[in-house]
């Protein structure tokens, strides 16, 4: 018998709307599964059962009263603990925010509330979203439901692990350099990095403002599309928000890929450091799309070689400024007994931030310093322009680009923890989309030789989410159901 927690969000939403089950029961089932298994996964930093049940009860009452609610009403969700929920502690995975309780809702949370989506908890992450494994969380790493000795990826590893583990059919993450797509790939779920400006950043604790974007996790393409519809849209509280209507993504899902031009990024598929099992699964996915009628070609994107370096100047530069507000004056941790304000700032920040965050603050401070700005930050912005141009040229020839999401499957906890550069290479295929402010999606394309999930990445120009969902959906249908992680055998 299929368990309630195995069902897709779309299915659960339909059942709740038809009163075949109640939102309250759905929430309770997920909460008990979390209670039973999250000790071994550590997907959540804070559980919010009261909030989730209150939302569910409200949904049930409104449905009983005959109201027509949205398709996700009553469907549980894991929220990355970097988005503010009024009255719920928010840590960003950092000690420096210990005890911080925001006095307001992020726009995404406001929209989730409006959609009747119960938030079951705040999910673990690398501190301030800086990392690719959740090992940088001040509250311990999350574990991959496919192999508890391995990382779920990061930085949105908690959300990805929660969706993969059946703790919630939906998750919210943020993607600054791959932080949704890479953990989606490593955990065998769907993750979407929307166009910059499509989803409001208001209430998202900033890492790198020009790159950060909120996006959905789900186990199916349809669920991801439904969730993006619910959270996207113009927000007057975010000046970088795109003032356009959100098209209905789900409506166009089934229109197929016949005649669509798909460009395979050749440097990625066969690239240095790409695990053979990853290449093999991506090649199989290309075959599948080809047989569905897509026109497949190959493309090389030379500027992308510099994208990683540019990213590791721009993102730290912005973070060095964004994180300046954590100074012990108003929020979270304040070092006691300091003799003056400067010492209080220094000691609070020294005690509150982890190594990776400090490393990036230092990198960024240096890159913005007088005399170095042009050589580092300025040059990185020029690379960014080149990346955008290379993408534009590529989209003259192709509708969609394709490659792996991550060079490897999930690695062992501790394996790369002491080698920041090896860790940074996890993001080499995901970063270009962030630099270009463009859309991309990662979806499972089978298991590699090591029995771990591989992610297929589809990339499109800004505002191409509808197109990406369509291609992803066509592939997903052709692929058929994926294997479930071993954790599904436990309850």
């Amino acid at each position: 018998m299929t368990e309630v927690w195995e069902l897709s969000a779309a299915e659960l939403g339909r059942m709740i709307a038809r009163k075949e089950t109640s939102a309250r029961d759905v929430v309770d089932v997920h909460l008990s599964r979390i209670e039973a298994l999250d000790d071994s996964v550590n997907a959540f930093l804070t559980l919010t059962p009261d909030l989730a049940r209150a939302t569910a009860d409200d949904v049930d009452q409104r449905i009983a009263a005959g109201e027509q609610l949205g398709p996700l009403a009553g469907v549980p969700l894991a929220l990355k603990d970097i988005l503010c929920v009024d009255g719920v502690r928010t840590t960003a995975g950092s000690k420096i925010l210990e005890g911080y309780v925001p006095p307001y809702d992020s726009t995404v949370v406001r929209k989730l509330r409006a959609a009747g989506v119960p938030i079951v908890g705040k999910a673990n992450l690398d501190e301030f979203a800086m990392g690719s494994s959740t090992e940088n969380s001040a509250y311990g790493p999350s574990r991959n439901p496919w192999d508890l000795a391995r990382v779920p990826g990061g930085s949105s590893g908690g959300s990805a692990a929660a969706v993969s583990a059946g703790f919630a059919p939906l998750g919210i993450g943020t993607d600054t350099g791959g932080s949704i797509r890479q953990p989606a790939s490593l955990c065998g779920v769907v993750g979407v990095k929307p166009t910059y400006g499509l989803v409001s950043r208001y209430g998202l604790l900033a890492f790198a403002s020009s790159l950060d974007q909120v996006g959905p996790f789900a186990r199916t393409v349809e669920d991801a599309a439904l969730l993006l519809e619910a959270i996207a849209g113009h927000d007057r509280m975010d000046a970088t928000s795109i003032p356009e209507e959100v098209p209905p993504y789900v409506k166009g899902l089934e229109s197929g890929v016949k005649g669509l031009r798909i460009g395979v990024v050749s440097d990625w598929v066969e690239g240095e450091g790409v695990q053979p099992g990853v290449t093999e699964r991506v090649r199989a996915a290309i075959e599948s799309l080809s047989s569905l009628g897509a026109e497949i070609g190959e493309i090389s994107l030379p500027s992308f070689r510099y994208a990683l370096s540019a990213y590791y100047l721009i993102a730290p530069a912005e973070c060095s400024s964004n994180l300046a507000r954590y100074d012990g004056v108003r929020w979270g941790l304040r070092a006691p007994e300091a003799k003056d304000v400067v010492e209080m700032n220094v000691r609070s920040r020294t005690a509150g931030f982890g190594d990776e965050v400090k490393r990036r603050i230092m990198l960024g401070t240096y890159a913005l310093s007088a005399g170095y700005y042009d050589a580092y930050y300025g040059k990185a912005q020029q690379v960014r322009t080149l990346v955008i141009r290379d993408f534009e040229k590529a989209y003259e020839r192709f509708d969609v680009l394709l490659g792996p999401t991550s060079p490897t499957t999930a690695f062992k906890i501790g394996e790369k923890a002491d080698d920041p550069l090896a860790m940074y290479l996890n993001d080499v295929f995901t970063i270009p989309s962030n630099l270009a402010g463009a859309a991309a999606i990662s979806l499972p394309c089978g298991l590699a030789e090591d029995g771990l999930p591989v992610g297929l990445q589809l990339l499109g120009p800004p505002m191409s989410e509808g197109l990406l969902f369509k291609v992803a959906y066509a592939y997903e249908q052709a692929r058929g159901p994926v294997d479930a992680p071993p954790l599904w055998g436990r309850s």
Partner: protein
Amino acid sequence: MGAIVSTYEAVIGLEVHVELATHSKMFCDSPTTFGAEPNTQTCPVCLGEPGSLPVPNRRAIEYLMLIGLALDCRIAPHSLFHRKNYFYPDMPKNYQISQYDLPLCVEGYLDVEVDGAERRIGITRAHMEEDTGKSLHVGTTGRIAEAKYSLIDYNRAGIPLVEVVSEPDIRSALEAQRYLTELRAILQTLGVSDVRMEEGSMRCDANVSLRAPGTEAFGTKVEIKNLNSIRSVSRALTYEIDRQQKALDGGDGIVQETRHFDENTGKTHSLRSKEEAFDYRYFPEPDLVPIEAGDDWIAEVRALMPELPRARRARIASEHDLTPEQAAFVAASPSSVQYFEALLASGTAARDAAVWMAGELSRALNGAGESIENARFSAADLAALIAAVKEGTVTLSSAKKAFQDAYTAGKTPLQIVDERGLHQVSDDGAIATIVDEVLSANEAEVARFRAGEEKVFKFLVGQVMKATKGQASPQVVDRVLRARLGNS
């Protein structure tokens, strides 16, 4: 002094910070009310709560544009907000959103009159930034070093500021004063700021250096901070120019530094020296998009431009045949013009109106520390008083006294005249009685007058006026007194 002045030429540039009078803050919709309870005019955005984002106040940008247009600046079609990064406890985000190398307004000028000659002061730029919070250090002295603890009021955090930076075209303290007075009048006329220095809505920093006249190269410059009134700017510059002259003459040279002006001593003194220059690590504010000022938007804002002070002064002077000084006073602000026009509408002659405004009204306002828009009684009340003087029912000196007392008491001048019986006494009989009293009380002086000491007459007139509290008609007193002294 004269010899030394001719040895050097002062080179002065001013940076003026003006708080805009928008209803809401620069990047959020928190109100800007002055003097509210601490931390009541705040929201997540101006508190810099984690996750909050700035959204620019369109009205504030239009105010800046209006200032730029009034100063004949070029409005940049593409300008940017930058982040200025530095740690300061009352700055919520530890960076200030400001403008850096792409300000909205550039390359303008302001013409000012100094000693009858016109001087054109270049405007380098006018840009926009947000204000910080305010620290209150609780302890015996109110200074941070001795404080037991500090409190922060974020009401001011995020209030829009415009910074107007002049070229180093100013050559004396007087020119600086004229420049600031004219700039303030323009800002007042535009209605974009309260420009009240005592509330901190206009602040000024001055850069000053000296050089030999005729040379192009600048001398070493000193920045003076904490200039909270036009008078302070003038005093500080006068002191600083003198100090630099002496230092140069003494062969000491000038140290490039920031100096603080002390209101009490009138001196500038070196702030504790910074070991290194600040590096603000400016970079484009990624939470905001560029300001794209298209021709349509600029034209829309230009259409809001009121008559500027210079044009207003010229018009008022020629329309009412006033001296330039009178016109300058009457046309100082839109409110003073309104007051003037209301006086004329109530039948006061232009010259009388100007004289009263520049004299008694100005004295009363200065005494109360108020400005003309909240003058305690209407122009019609003053007009009635002026009319009473003209008709001879109140003497000028009684009228002036009634005016000042009325201002303090919050009544109309004529009410005071009635209450205190200040009507002019022209009745010969009543005055004769008082004259007789004065003469009998001052027999010695009467004798001296009769001995030919004519100046004693004035003293006796004074005694009569004193006895009548200034209400007696001077002509009648003169006539009666002469008659009495001649007769006896």
